[in-house]
């Protein structure tokens, strides 16, 4: 199905199932421990053995020699596969750093060997016996110090411009110019990377934890040098990803190569410390923002420049992208620059681009509002735009940022915010409120599905879509149930298997809208097949409801359309030019109240509210769950999360969950989420858009702005830890 004209009325609009508060259908499997995650896959007739990874002890250089003799002699050891033993492997399309193979070291904890033994403990003990001589080379690890060497990245749009920024800024009545920094961040999802690989002749099956089944399948085939058709990927349950499982990772490659060498199915999990330096992370940024405005608050000039670093061949963090679209202003420019760093690979982490971009932009907007003497909510509303500011011919498909801000201000009690900073005191707490807009683009990715109706009336959906904790199983079941007029419990959903039609996968908040649109497309075909089977010309004359097909007074059980052989339909949603003719984005507003301890500078969240305008909400329960999780991640980004770079040794030092502090329950006392009641017919037949990452974009700035309101201290370097506040807090005695 090609989607190239706006959606009109369709069965999803019935809203009998889609949009309803339905608990996740895979919930009982998870709460009872029966959902099988990658490392847990277990066939009682299979004798699994265990691989343990050896990571580079240096950040940059070459392996001089590797002595594996002691490891090979250790108890239980079956094989030791080394990167210099295996030679150069081809690199997957989506990887920047090599996952394995070759003697060159590109970053700390890059995999250089895998030791296979009968037990996990034997493999781990033997891995510690691998001796490596390195020829270490000097690397570049400091973004700030190397910023001036940054260049225009090859891909994407490194520069954008409209009007004449320089002239307009120069003559603006009120001007603002500030620089902000965001640190490297780790996905820190609960389930570490893990894979089990088994060879059957020249065919390879891998149970793993992947957000994008088809990308992994292609890149694993490339890396181990076999045909894609010979690879099967299984990833039915995933314990969080946040972008860290978008691209093939070392565990899958090591498991495949180790299983080939050991001639046994091999399990490999990356130990927790490897998460930070072996895989990918969100790159640090330096961002400069300039805004010029009339005295009434209308922006006349806005510029956003961003610098980040990555390994050679890598890409930038596109932190400027929201600034091209979020606020009006005739004269504007953005620039993205990329430095070369020898740190581990920077890559996508939840809401890449907008998440760090909004961390900076939405503080700048708060600062500018103050300079103009405007309420920060009003300043944002004054500068709303219903068209792409770079190209006013191009409207937004649907945009209600103003509705989000107004609704939020009212529900949060924004009028109670003290205009003067550092004036609200409750006991030892300085209390303040902050606001930020939320913005994240809506991405459209083709997605396929297969649906099958059997004689029992059960509808089975098969797609290689993944559920990384988002609720994919549930919204896909709701979609099929709505389309075919059956209750949700008559729908079986099978996901995360490369034998199924290729889907959008999970990433960029596109999975919810796109994968259900793919299921919609397949269900349209199934409805046609049902009509034909039952002797009707077109499904349009039929009503699918209550497990029946109805026309006039005639009612037939849906199941009747299936014979001994089930009725099968497969299709794929493909998107036309609506994403080009119309700017598709999602909008929101974040409101936060914080307390800052007047003595210690500890910041604690008191309450948070998100208002989201993101098209049809497919399931308010799972959508809310996505948003509160994202808000929690935003609090981490604001207050504690930072991968600390050792600029001498070139690695992220705090590489475990004790050192890399994500929020705990005690940090998140009260969250509320409001969804505006809207649909976006430009986005898909589902009229839904992304929601998961919208919930993150802007949160950290709202926290930063609340801290400023509470204390009068403006911190422009994330995370806002107490050491950045303490010297400016009032005297205590």
């Amino acid at each position, binding site marked *: 199905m090609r989607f190239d004209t706006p959606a009109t009325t369709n069965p999803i609009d019935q809203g009998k199932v889609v949009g309803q508060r339905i608990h996740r259908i895979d919930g009982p499997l998870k709460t009872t421990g029966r959902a099988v995650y990658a490392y847990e896959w277990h066939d009682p007739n299979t004798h699994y053995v265990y691989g343990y990874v050896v990571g580079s002890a240096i950040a940059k250089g070459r392996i001089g020699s590797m002595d594996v003799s002691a490891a090979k002699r250790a108890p239980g050891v079956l094989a030791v596969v080394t990167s210099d033993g295996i030679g150069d492997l081809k690199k997957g399309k989506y990887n920047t750093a090599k996952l394995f193979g070759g003697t060159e070291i590109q970053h700390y904890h890059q995999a250089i060997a895998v030791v296979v033994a009968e037990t996990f403990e034997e493999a781990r*003990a033997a891995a510690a016996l691998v001796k490596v001589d390195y020829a270490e080379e000097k690397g570049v690890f400091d973004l700030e110090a190397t910023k001036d060497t940054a260049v225009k990245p090859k891909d994407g749009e490194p520069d954008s411009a409209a009007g004449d920024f320089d002239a307009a800024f120069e003559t603006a009545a009120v001007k603002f110019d500030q620089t902000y920094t965001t640190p490297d961040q780790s996905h820190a999802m609960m389930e570490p990377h893990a894979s089990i690989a088994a060879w059957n002749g020249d065919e390879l099956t891998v149970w793993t934890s992947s957000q994008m089944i088809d990308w992994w399948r292609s890149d694993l085939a490339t890396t181990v040098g076999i045909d894609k058709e010979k690879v099967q990927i299984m990833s039915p349950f995933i314990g969080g990803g946040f972008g860290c499982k978008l691209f093939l990772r070392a565990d899958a490659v090591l498991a495949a190569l180790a299983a080939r060498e050991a001639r046994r199915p091999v399990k490999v999990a990356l130990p927790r410390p490897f998460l930070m330096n072996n895989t990918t992370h969100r790159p640090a940024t330096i961002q400069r923002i300039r805004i010029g405005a009339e005295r009434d608050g209308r922006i006349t000039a806005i510029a956003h420049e961003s610098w980040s670093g990555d390994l050679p061949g890598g890409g930038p963090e596109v932190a400027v992208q929201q600034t091209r679209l979020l606020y009006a202003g005739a004269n504007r420019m953005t620039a993205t620059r990329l430095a070369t760093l020898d740190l581990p690979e920077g890559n996508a982490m939840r809401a890449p681009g907008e998440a760090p971009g909004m961390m900076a932009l939405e503080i700048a907007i708060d600062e500018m509002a103050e300079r103009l003497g405007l309420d920060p909510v009003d300043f944002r509303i004054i500068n709303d735009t219903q068209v792409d500011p770079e190209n006013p011919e191009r409207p937004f498909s649907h945009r209600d940022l103003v509705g989000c801000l107004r609704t939020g201000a009212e529900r949060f009690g924004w009028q109670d915010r003290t205009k003067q900073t550092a004036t609200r005191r409750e006991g030892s707490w300085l209390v303040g409120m902050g606001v930020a807009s939320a913005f994240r683009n809506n991405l459209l990715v083709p997605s396929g599905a297969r649906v099958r109706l059997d004689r029992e009336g059960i509808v089975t959906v098969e797609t290689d879509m993944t559920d990384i904790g988002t609720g994919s199983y549930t919204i896909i079941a709701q979609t099929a149930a709505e389309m075919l007029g059956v209750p949700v419990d008559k729908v079986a959903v099978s996901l995360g298997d490369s034998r199924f039609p290729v889907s959008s996968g999970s990433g960029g908040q596109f999975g919810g809208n796109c994968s259900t649109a793919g299921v919609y497309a397949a269900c349209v075909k199934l409805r046609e097949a049902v009509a034909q089977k039952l002797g009707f010309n077109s499904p349009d004359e039929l009503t699918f409801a209550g497990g029946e097909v109805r026309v006039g007074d005639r009612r037939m059980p849906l199941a009747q359309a299936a014979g001994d052989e089930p009725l099968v339909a497969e299709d794929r949603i493909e998107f036309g030019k609506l994403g080009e003719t119309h700017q598709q984005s999602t909008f929101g507003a974040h409101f936060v109240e914080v307390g800052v301890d007047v003595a210690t*500078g500890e910041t604690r969240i008191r309450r948070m509210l998100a208002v989201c305008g993101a098209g049809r909400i497919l399931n308010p329960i799972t959508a809310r769950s996505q948003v509160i999780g994202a808000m929690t991640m935003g609090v981490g980004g604001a207050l504690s999360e930072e991968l600390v770079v050792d600029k001498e040794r070139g690695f992220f*030092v705090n590489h475990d969950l*004790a050192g890399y*502090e994500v*929020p705990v329950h005690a940090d998140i006392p009260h969250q509320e989420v409001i969804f505006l009641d809207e649909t976006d017919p430009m986005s898909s037949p589902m009229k839904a858009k992304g929601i998961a990452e919208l919930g993150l974009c802007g949160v950290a700035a709202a926290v930063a702005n609340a801290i400023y309101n509470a204390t009068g201290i403006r911190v422009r370097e994330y995370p806002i830890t*107490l050491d950045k506040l*303490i*010297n400016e807090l009032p005297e205590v005695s």
Partner: protein
Amino acid sequence: MRAFSYERASTIEAAAKAAAGTDGAKFIAGGTNLLDLMKLEIETPTHLIDVNRLGLDRIEPTPDGGLRIGALVRNTDLAADGRIRRDYALLARALLAGASGQLRNRATTAGNLLQRTRCPYFYDTNQPCNKRQPGSGCAALGGFSRQLAVVGVSDACIANHPSDMAVAMRALDAIVETVRSDGTTRSIPIADLHRLPGDTPHIEHVLERGELITAVVLPKPVGGKHIYRKVRDRASYAFALVSIAAVVMQDGTGRVAAGGIAPKPWRDEAAERGLPNGAKAVTAKLLANAHPTEQNAFKLALVERTLSAVLAEARG
């Protein structure tokens, strides 16, 4: 983790003797710290002596009105004990500020005292660390040191002691009771238990080979207001940037020990005589010989400000 042998000791004396007689032997109780370190091969004992069944898990009154806490009393049980909560609230509060419920269920009194630093370079066996590998250097000095010690440090090591419990015990003048491998016993004031790093940061306490902690004795209650204030980046499950354990009497005198800033619980009896004159009077002495790094110098101001807040709370 390296292979090791294991025995379960049946008497205190046998445990101490076995530990002294076996190279590379270590006692294991809760294992909440030791097992993690063994998995990373930071600790590589060849032999473990399990002391969990030695019956050292009781809290008993002493003849002079104090309490004797068995070495194996779990943190959870100690924090929940009615006598501790009533007479030594400082200790209960410090315990509950540490770790998580699951860890406190397992962690023991003696083990908590002897837990090892959380310096990230100590935890990464690819990095130089004089504490882990004497003579290899200290990566923390020029590296990531925000969390680490500002007083009691040396050019060889700036690691800090991570315990909350020990800070309260230091303020309460606890006494550590041990049995040595020859069967003799001794009492060590907690102030003397831990050593400063000097040029031997791998030697962290004064216990002899085979010497086993059997109990920690709290002298009779001193009254006063008991306040434990732990400052950290997130609200729970994080090690202290700074902590203050204070007992403040009605006349403004009292005791104060600080955590998170030194290789051992940090207290200076001369400094705390300044308590009636406010926090600055105390910290000027308490932190007199501080050697902070650029990254952790904020701890000096933080100690003073936290102590100010504690004293304000004590005044009510």
